[in-house]
């Protein structure tokens, strides 16, 4: 059965491959997407123009080109991106040479796999729905490839019309079985082999260094980072500081964490027991280790967390799949009221070169206020408040960046403000550090949770005051109080928002986030543990592997039968016809009991004539019944309702 396939089927196949690759465009490098589209176009054009195969030299050349582009754009063809890109490229090359049924089928088989690995990159609901629909198209393709002489001359449109509804119907019929497998197929509690990609730091989100532009890059990124569900009331907007990486070291341009604090365990915190708040963080996979608890956390249900003395909470493993963590945070606290000498030294460290004007300004404040850190901080905030401007598009900084910002451009956002504020504090002898994380979040009424996205990224400062410990100061608030009080960049700068984030579309976005959250809840986070608690609502205790396997077999068989019955239900019409014949037979038998023997050779018209003669008073009823039977059984009356009514009437007679 290895015959050359029809041109129409090659077109079908090519467009299907396009659909398959569309699931990958969001991560695939532009170069490769372009190359892939080019190969598709080449195949389309080639198929239109000639029946001859694409020459080997062209294919080899393309192969080398594609491999070179692949290595150039994603690097090694191992790992998640590299492997997936390689598979996609090989698929395109296979398409280029596909001419016969065998190759076409292999290509579709591979395409199933390619479609599935898109879930390594996104597990959201829309990509999932898309991929599930692609299944129908792929099976439609296989359907079109079944040898069938009736369809040799049909057009692509006709082939789609013929194959897609059939494949779609089979897909619908298969949903119960797929559902049963999903619920009952025994899950692995530990993976058989490693994660699909090496956990080497995230691609998006807060990073472990703060360079100019790091946070502003996130403001365009609306992907959710986590959702928070509070046990009690949701804290007001100005309290929603989600603590992430803390930066101690500054080299003049870049802030970085302090490695020597990394293993100091615990947070030296004293707090008011009345002012604590319990909540659950539902983290999206950030591929990083940071947790983002509310300032300042002190307790959690997770056991794999490391608690740093500067208030960072870090997971031992990167968050590569959605996870939930419960935290308890103190809203009123005294944080590290005794500052150790080493901490003080770190919190005062500055590069000795550069930024002379800033240092001079800070020195003048120190001379004025002495040891009073709060007064110096207020002086700095007043200075910033006086003439600075909050903008998302600051001019670039040249030379001594702090000096240039403070005395020259004076335009910036949280990164600039927190960084220069901490610089000034340190220069004035007040221990200070930069804290990054997220500020705010949008409350989702439908879901009852607070949604925090990458666009909520923020940076602020902490200074250490004698007797009070670390105190949070947000210099951005001095310039743009709305940023803090309303809780989002968008609220502070409505004009900066895209049109689709405002008004009813914004509400729609919240609704869809709720759907995304439910999806995460029900599907993405379903695991071995939740599977074993599956039957709890039905009053059954945890079920084990054996019960799971039995359930899978029993319900699977049922679902398979159900699907087969539904997808093959067109055959039931015949059964109905048989029921009609049976009903008529019984009707004849009843007539026989009443004294009208019916010959086996006798047709319904003769029966009617004799019955009407025997029972003239019921002749009209009999005539209607028998004529209706003739119309249904021998005529063109195909209406199922009429048929069913007739069966009832025959039974009732």
């Amino acid at each position, binding site marked *: *059965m290895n015959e050359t396939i029809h041109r129409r089927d090659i077109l079908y196949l090519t467009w299907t491959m396009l659909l398959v690759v569309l699931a990958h465009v969001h991560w695939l490098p532009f170069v490769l997407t372009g190359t892939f589209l080019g190969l598709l176009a080449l195949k389309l054009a080639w198929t239109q123009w000639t029946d001859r195969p694409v020459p080997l030299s062209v294919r080899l050349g393309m192969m080398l080109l594609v491999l070179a582009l692949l290595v150039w754009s994603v690097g090694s063809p191992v790992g998640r991106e590299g492997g997936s890109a390689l598979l996609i490229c090989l698929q395109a090359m296979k398409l280029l040479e596909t001419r016969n049924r*065998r190759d076409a*089928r292999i290509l579709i*088989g591979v395409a*199933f*796999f390619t*479609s*599935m*690995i898109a*879930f*390594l990159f996104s*597990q959201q609901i829309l*990509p*999932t729905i898309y*991929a*599930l629909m692609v*299944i129908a198209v792929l*099976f439609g393709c*296989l*359907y079109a*490839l*079944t*040898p*069938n*002489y*009736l*369809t040799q001359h049909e057009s692509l449109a006709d082939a789609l019309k013929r194959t897609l509804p*059939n*494949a779609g119907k*089979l*897909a619908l*019929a*298969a*949903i119960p*079985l*797929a559902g049963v*497998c*999903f619920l009952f*197929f025994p*899950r*692995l509690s530990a*993976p*058989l*082999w490693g*994660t*699909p990609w090496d956990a080497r730091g995230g691609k998006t989100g807060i990073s472990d260094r703060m360079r100019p532009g790091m946070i502003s890059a996130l403001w365009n990124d609306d992907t959710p980072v986590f959702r928070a569900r509070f046990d009690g009331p949701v804290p007001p907007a100005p309290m929603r500081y989600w603590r992430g990486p803390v930066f101690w070291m500054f080299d003049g341009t870049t802030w970085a964490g302090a490695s020597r604090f990394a293993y100091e365990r615990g947070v030296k915190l004293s707090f008011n027991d009345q002012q604590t708040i319990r909540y659950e963080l539902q983290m999206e996979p950030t591929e990083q280790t940071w947790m983002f608890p509310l300032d300042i956390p002190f307790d959690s249900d997770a056991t794999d967390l490391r608690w740093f003395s500067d208030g960072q909470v870090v997971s031992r493993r990167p968050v590569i*799949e959605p996870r939930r963590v419960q935290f308890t945070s103190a809203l009123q606290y005294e944080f590290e009221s005794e500052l150790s000498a080493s901490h003080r030294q770190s919190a005062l460290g500055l590069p000795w070169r550069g930024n002379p004007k800033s240092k001079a300004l800070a020195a003048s404040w120190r001379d004025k206020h002495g040891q009073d850190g709060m007064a110096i901080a207020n002086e700095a905030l007043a200075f910033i408040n006086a003439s600075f401007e909050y903008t998302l598009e600051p001019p670039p900084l040249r030379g001594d960046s702090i000096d240039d910002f403070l005395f020259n451009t004076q335009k910036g956002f949280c990164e600039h403000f927190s960084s220069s504020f901490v610089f000034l504090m340190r220069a004035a002898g007040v221990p200070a550090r930069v804290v990054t994380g997220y500020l705010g979040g949008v409350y989702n009424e439908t879901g009852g949770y607070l949604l925090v996205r990458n666009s909520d990224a923020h940076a602020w400062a902490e200074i250490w005051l004698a007797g009070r410990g670390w105190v949070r100061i947000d210099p951005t608030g001095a310039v743009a109080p709305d940023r803090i009080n309303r809780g989002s960049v968008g609220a502070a700068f409505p004009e900066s928002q895209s049109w689709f984030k405002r008004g009813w579309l914004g509400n729609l976005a919240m609704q869809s986030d709720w759907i995304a959250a439910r999806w995460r809840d029900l*599907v993405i*986070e*379903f*695991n071995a543990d939740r599977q074993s608690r599956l039957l709890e609502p039905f009053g059954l205790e945890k079920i084990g592997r054996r019960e799971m396997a039995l359930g899978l077999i029993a319900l699977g068989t049922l*679902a*398979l039968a159900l*699907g087969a019955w539904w*997808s*093959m239900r*067109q*055959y039931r*019409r*015949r059964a109905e016809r048989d029921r009609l014949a049976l009903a008529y037979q019984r009707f004849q038998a009843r007539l026989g009991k009443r004294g009208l023997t019916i010959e086996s050779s006798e047709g319904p018209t003769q029966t009617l004539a004799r019955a009407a003669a025997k029972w003239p008073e019921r002749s009209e009823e009999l005539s209607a019944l028998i004529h209706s039977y003739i119309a249904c059984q021998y005529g063109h009356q195909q209406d199922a309702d009429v048929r069913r009514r007739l069966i009832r009437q025959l039974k009732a007679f």
Partner: protein
Amino acid sequence: MSALLRWWESLLQAAEKRLPALTRHRQPEALPITLHHRRVYILPTRFGLFFGLIAFTMVIGSLNYNNNPAMLFAFLVVAISMLSFHHTVGNLRGLTLKSIRAEPVFAGASIRLKLSFREVEQRSRPGLILDLGAAESRLALPENSDTEVEIELPTMRRGWFRPGRFRLWTEYPFGIVWAWSYLHPERQFIVYPKPETNPPPLPIGNREDHGTRMRSPGEEWQGLREYRQSDPPRHIAWKQSAHADAMLVKEFADPISDAICLDWHGLDSLDHEARIARLSAWTLAAQAEGLSFRLRLPNQELGPGSGDEFSARCLTELALLP
């Protein structure tokens, strides 16, 4: 010993009940043949094995990474392919082979078998393939219909041609599995002997008198017999037919001298098959000229007669000569 034999018999019976194609359907069976589910078999295709490997990898991979959307995806693919098994079998089940017809052919030519299938369940059956050894033919049945499919088979020898066991199979809908069933209809078709090419002229005495001469009614009248398709309309006895139930024709006794005789024994110089070929060629020639002739064979004598039916009978007898 007899216990062992009985045991073997019962085992065979059981096997036959479960797997009729292994035993019973090697034997020809009478038409019509309906493919019920017990005689439809199913196995994965080579692509099906590859597909199974892919599906297995998908399930294991998604389980390993506990990637639930991927798992949904993989299970849906598996579920659809499992459902398709039912459709593959269903594409054959309930199909009926009603009849097989074929025009007689001469040995060496291909015989065109016309198999007519009936679809009584209301569904279309696309992508069916009928094969018999090297010959293959595709068919598709629209809902609730009869379809005739032709399959051409080469013939080698004169005599009875038994097509043997057909295989009807399908990969519908996805080519993952193929279902097949064997059909071994108990039918045989005659294959005429291959006529001699460029045979010598017919052994005719007074050629001019024959074929063109009109007979007048009453002349050498013999009796009435039932109408046959090959009878010329002018022989129909209209008056007598009006009184009887059937159509009657007048039969004339051909004067023996009138008919040419194609005599087996007169061809001593040729060997067995060559004689048959010569006689076949002459029969055809006589038929073409509309002559009345007799065929004398080693064991019987046919005719005298004329027309398509008679010559078909002659060719059949020639074909069946030992």
